[in-house]
């Protein structure tokens, strides 16, 4: 076999491998994968799906419990799989950012749980979400007065950010993503007034 014949064979082999790889890549692109976003409940379509953050006020929190030391607010969001493949939400965590330097009298906790199968143990059970469907999720925020009056702390409340962090997997590698939500003092105070909670 001459050197040129050998080179020709190598070239043909490289072409075949490249063609198979390109075909596989195109197939994967056509097939797609899961892709999750967080949406406010009741929003069926978003022209530009928000990912990194939902605009302030996009999620309406309702006051569920109010006492001298504790306030519980809850809202519903949709963990929406807008990809072309079924996906699994392996874990989902609420992460609050309320620095003690700015809010020494308050502690904020976020709990996430599927609306249809609520849990109170902060455990997230891995769940399958078919393509183009969403998982309704309850976001529960608990504000506790660490010291002093909750009323005063709320009166001084500016705003607090918190993240919904989710670990997802589908046809390809698992990854974490997160979407930021914001709770403003005005939201809390207006909800407080709407529910007719009096100062204690």
């Amino acid at each position, binding site marked *: 076999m001459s050197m040129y014949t050998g080179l020709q064979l190598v070239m043909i082999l490289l072409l075949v491998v490249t063609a198979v790889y390109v075909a*596989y890549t195109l*197939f*994967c692109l056509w*097939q797609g994968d899961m892709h999750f976003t967080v949406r406010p409940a009741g929003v069926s379509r978003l022209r530009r799906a928000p990912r990194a953050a939902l605009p302030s006020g996009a999620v309406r929190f309702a006051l569920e419990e109010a006492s001298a030391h504790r306030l519980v607010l809850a809202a519903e969001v949709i963990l929406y799989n807008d990809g072309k*493949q*079924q996906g*699994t939400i*392996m*874990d989902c965590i609420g992460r609050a950012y309320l620095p003690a330097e700015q809010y020494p009298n308050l502690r904020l906790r976020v709990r996430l749980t599927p609306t249809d199968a609520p849990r109170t143990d902060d*455990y997230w*059970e*891995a*769940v*399958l979400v078919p393509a183009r469907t969403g998982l309704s999720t309850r976001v529960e925020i608990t504000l506790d007065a660490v010291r002093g009056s909750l009323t005063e702390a709320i009166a001084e409340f500016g705003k607090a950010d918190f993240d919904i962090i989710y670990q997802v*997997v*589908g*046809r*390809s*590698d*698992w990854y974490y993503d997160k979407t930021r939500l914001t709770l403003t003092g005005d939201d809390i105070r207006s909800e407080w007034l709407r529910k007719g909670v009096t100062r204690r």
Partner: protein
Amino acid sequence: MKPTLTLVPVKTRILTDDDNIVEAVELYGGHLVGPDDIVCVAESVVAITQGEFTRPELLRPSWQARLMNRFVPAEGSMASVYGMQSAMEKEGEWKMLFWFIVGFVAKLFGRRGVWYAHCRQASFVDDVTGTMPPFDKCIVYGPRDADRVCDEMVKRLGCYGAVVADVNDLKRSAVLGKSHGIDAAEVAQILIDNPFGNAGEMTPIVIIKDYAAVARAAHGGHSART
């Protein structure tokens, strides 16, 4: 009085890889087991007590897994790249790829299930969400040496027989391991309504009471062993 079959689910605490399945069955169900009974244990629980599970985070998918999982229907555990890789950890990447290609060709000629028949973990693996918390975040393999586990249970408990079964609420029931002489197809049929439950029942053990007595009555006093 003519004996009848009764299915008795046995509740346990969560069983983990620190437990021994035979000891657990004896602890929670030993007092309920008689010489005519068959002890049935859920396959995922046997696998978990054997440490036969992993987490997606511990796996590094190979190119074979990335390639093959794209050609499996979305509903199965093998559609996930980690489900596929977990099966490959047991069976080998090249073996899985070889039988995948052979299975594909066989399917073109109307013969189905060739790949699953030669790569058993491909059908045994339960991907994430397939098992109860806290193992819902794990990939659970099929149990190891299921027949030997069953023989040990019979020896320890003095029962008529034992099986390791894979049953779900979709009326799918299969016996993956059995003690000597047990008719797997018959026991699978008895378990078809999933007496284990797969949700929060916490009953991974089911005792088929008086199986041998019923079989003897049906066979005119002869043993039902196959």
